[in-house]
Each structure stands twice: as structure tokens, then as C-alpha cells.
């Protein structure tokens, strides 16, 4: 079965656990089977990944088992829209020095896991599945420009979470805000 690894990898990163990921992968292939009349000759991998993604969101709605918005860090969320990419904080902003303090690169997986879904899926498709922007745009059903800004922001969010891991930059921690502390 072609692209099963890619399908499962995306499902696993979307679901966050192997049990649901396997269910979503299987369901996606069955859906693909039922609907492959709709296949119009685009890239087959992108097509099955798209079905995986739709299956995941259907599954999410159906079981309502999880609520992304309460699960991840509000601080990461509140940095702004796709295009608002603020400068990094001022105290220690040298990526090399921050990253040099990250002693275990397995923290990468954990940081990636903690990203909001829209950023996580973009990174998984780009860095783990090696999809082009065009392919990602088709899979996620968004313009190419959005793919670019999401990836820019996704990597920036990873950087922010590494900065926190290493305690290198307190300016990024937005709550409580200085103004509130004075009051």
C-alpha cells in the first residue's frame, strides 16, 4: 500500500497517540477506497494525506475527546496571527547559544508535539514528509503564502519553547504582564 508510512506519520502527529493514529489511518484508507472516484490525478501522496487530515478532524468532532484550545499553552497562542511574527526577545536571542544549551534534541519532538495543530501539521509535512510548499498548500487547502507564514511561525514557536526550556529569555513569558504586576 503506497504512502502508508506518510499517512500514519501524519495521523500520529495529529492524534498524539498510536491507538487513535492507527484508527484514523485505517479509516482514511477505507475512505480513500470508497471515494477514489474523486481522485483527479493530483499527487497521490498529497491526496491520501488530505484524507488522513479530514478523517482526523471528523474523528475529533465525533469523539470530542479533546479540546485543542484548552490543551496547549495560551502564551504560545497569544503571540498573534499568522503574519504577526514579532522579533525575538532581547536578552538572549542568539539561536546558537540557546540551542547549545538544549542538551537533548529529543526535546524537539516534545516541542513539536506541543505546537498548535495548524503549525504542527505544517512542520510535519515540510520537515518529516519533505513536501514542497505547493504540495502542503494542496494538502491543507490553504494558499502557498499561508504555508510560508505558518512554517515561519511554527519554527519561531519552537524557538520560543526552547528559550523557555533553557530559561534563557524571560521576556517572552507574557503573563503576568509587567503592567499587571505594578498594579
Amino acid at each position, binding site marked *: *500500500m503506497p504512502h502508508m508510512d506518510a499517512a500514519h506519520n501524519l495521523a500520529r502527529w495529529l492524534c498524539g497517540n498510536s491507538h487513535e493514529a*492507527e484508527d484514523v489511518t485505517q479509516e482514511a484508507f*477505507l475512505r480513500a477506497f*470508497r471515494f477514489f472516484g474523486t481522485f483527479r490525478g493530483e499527487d497521490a501522496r498529497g491526496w491520501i494525506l488530505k484524507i488522513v487530515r479530514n478523517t482526523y478532524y471528523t474523528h475529533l468532532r465525533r469523539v470530542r475527546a479533546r479540546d485543542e484550545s484548552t490543551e496547549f499553552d495560551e502564551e504560545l497562542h497569544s503571540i498573534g496571527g499568522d503574519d504577526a511574527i514579532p522579533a525575538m526577545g532581547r536578552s538572549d536571542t542568539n539561536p546558537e547559544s540557546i540551542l547549545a544549551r538544549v542538551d537533548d534534541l529529543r526535546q524537539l519532538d516534545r516541542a513539536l508535539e506541543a505546537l498548535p495543530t495548524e503549525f504542527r501539521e505544517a512542520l510535519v509535512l515540510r520537515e518529516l514528509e519533505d513536501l514542497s510548499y505547493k504540495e502542503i498548500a494542496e494538502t491543507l487547502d490553504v494558499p502557498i503564502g499561508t504555508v510560508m507564514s505558518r512554517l515561519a511561525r511554527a*519554527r*519561531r514557536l519552537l524557538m520560543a519553547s526552547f528559550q523557555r526550556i533553557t530559561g534563557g529569555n524571560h521576556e517572552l513569558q507574557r503573563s503576568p504582564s509587567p503592567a499587571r504586576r505594578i498594579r
Partner: protein
Amino acid sequence: MNCSEARVRLAGYVDDELSPGERAEVDAHTQGCADCRRERSAQWFFHRALPREGRRYAAPPALRRRIRTALRAAGDAAPPAPWWRRWSVTLPVPVLGGAVAALVAANAVLLAGLPTGEERLAEDVVAGHVRALVGSHPIEVASSDRHTVKPWYVGRLDFSPPVTDFAADGFPLAGGRVDFVGGRTVAALVYARHEHMIDVYAWPAPASAREPLEASERRGFNVLHWTAGGMTYWLASDLEMAEMKRLAALLEARRGT
């Protein structure tokens, strides 16, 4: 180029997705902007580190087997039927080589020992629905106008199927086709509900025959069946059962008028 524009393009920069012109603009900006240079280092770092250090979860062998089995089961739902000859179904590019092979195999091999009665009808109904979804002709007469659809069946069936558009109730009629269920040709009316497709199979029953509404699931599809007013109905779809029951209620209400 300002910083916020540059920061979006830095992703495209490290991913090598910018035109030479855009690249040059980013270079010009970063030369004079330390913040954006730092940002670029961070983009580079993750672009290099993730493919190397990030975990890629391959599909476990047990899952591969499970999916292959499930697809084969789904393929078995498509028995050898006249549609093969009637419709020139062009199977798409072998997206899912295995799935296509399973379907072809299921069509090539005569299924022995089919269950009888209701079971078999339900199988046929779901098989017809799968064929319609997989094939290129789910609808032979595409129209929401009953005055187009109903006459189309004249000469194709030995009875006149009930045809009503329920667009006002959220179930627009998409059209119809002739299908083969339980050894006879029947009407398959196609309704749309959002992006789902519902097949309504209908054929005559004795006027006195009554079968209560019976819901079941088969091969991942929802199936509804009842008999009333001299007509047997089978509905098949991947739509939620509650929604299918709404359509059933509409069909029944229409019969009363």
C-alpha cells in the same frame, strides 16, 4: 521590505521556495537587520534539525495487515454485476494499487455461498452504493426535477419509482440510476446531504407488506430499510444514521400526501 514581511519570507528562504528576486530582497534586508538575521538562524536550525532528529512514525506491520484486510473486505462488497459491462468504468490512476486490485479481484471471482434474504439484500444495497461511489457513473440521470427523473425510468424499469426532491428540507435530489439488487433491476435515487451521497433503493412490494424501520451498519456504511405502501426502501450512505432517518421520515411523509 520591512521586518514582518522578511520574517515570513525567511521560511521560504531556508526552504528554498523563493524566487531569486525575493531571495535577493531578503538578503538585502537581513544585511541591515540583526533581529532578522537571528530569526534566519532559528529557521535554519529547525529546518536542519527536524528531518534529522524529528521522529517519523512508520506504519506498524500489524496496521498494514489490518488495513489490507479491511480493504479486501470493502472490495468484497462489490460483487460481479452487470455494471461492469453496462458502464465503461475507468478505474483511476492506481492511487491505491491494493484497493484497486482487491476490487478487481472481487469482481472477477464469483462470490460463493452468499447469505440469503434480508442479509443478501443489505449486501447488494451496500455493494451497489460502493460501486456507485467508486465508479464514474453514480448518477445516470442528473436532475433535481422529478419531471425529468421519473420519465427517465420509463422503459428502464417495470414500475414507476417514487421521485421527490427534498431540497427545501436539506436533502436535494441529485438524480437517479438503475441498479441491480436481489436479482432484479431497481430504482436507485440519489440524494445529496452536504458532501454526502445517499442512495435510496426502491422497488415494489405487495400492498399489504409492512416492515418496520430497521437500521444497521454494514461495511462502514449506514443502512436503513422498511416496507410500506407497496414499496420496499433501502437507504445506504456514510451519512449519520440520525440524518438518514430524517430522509426516511421525509420519504414516508411524502407517501402520505
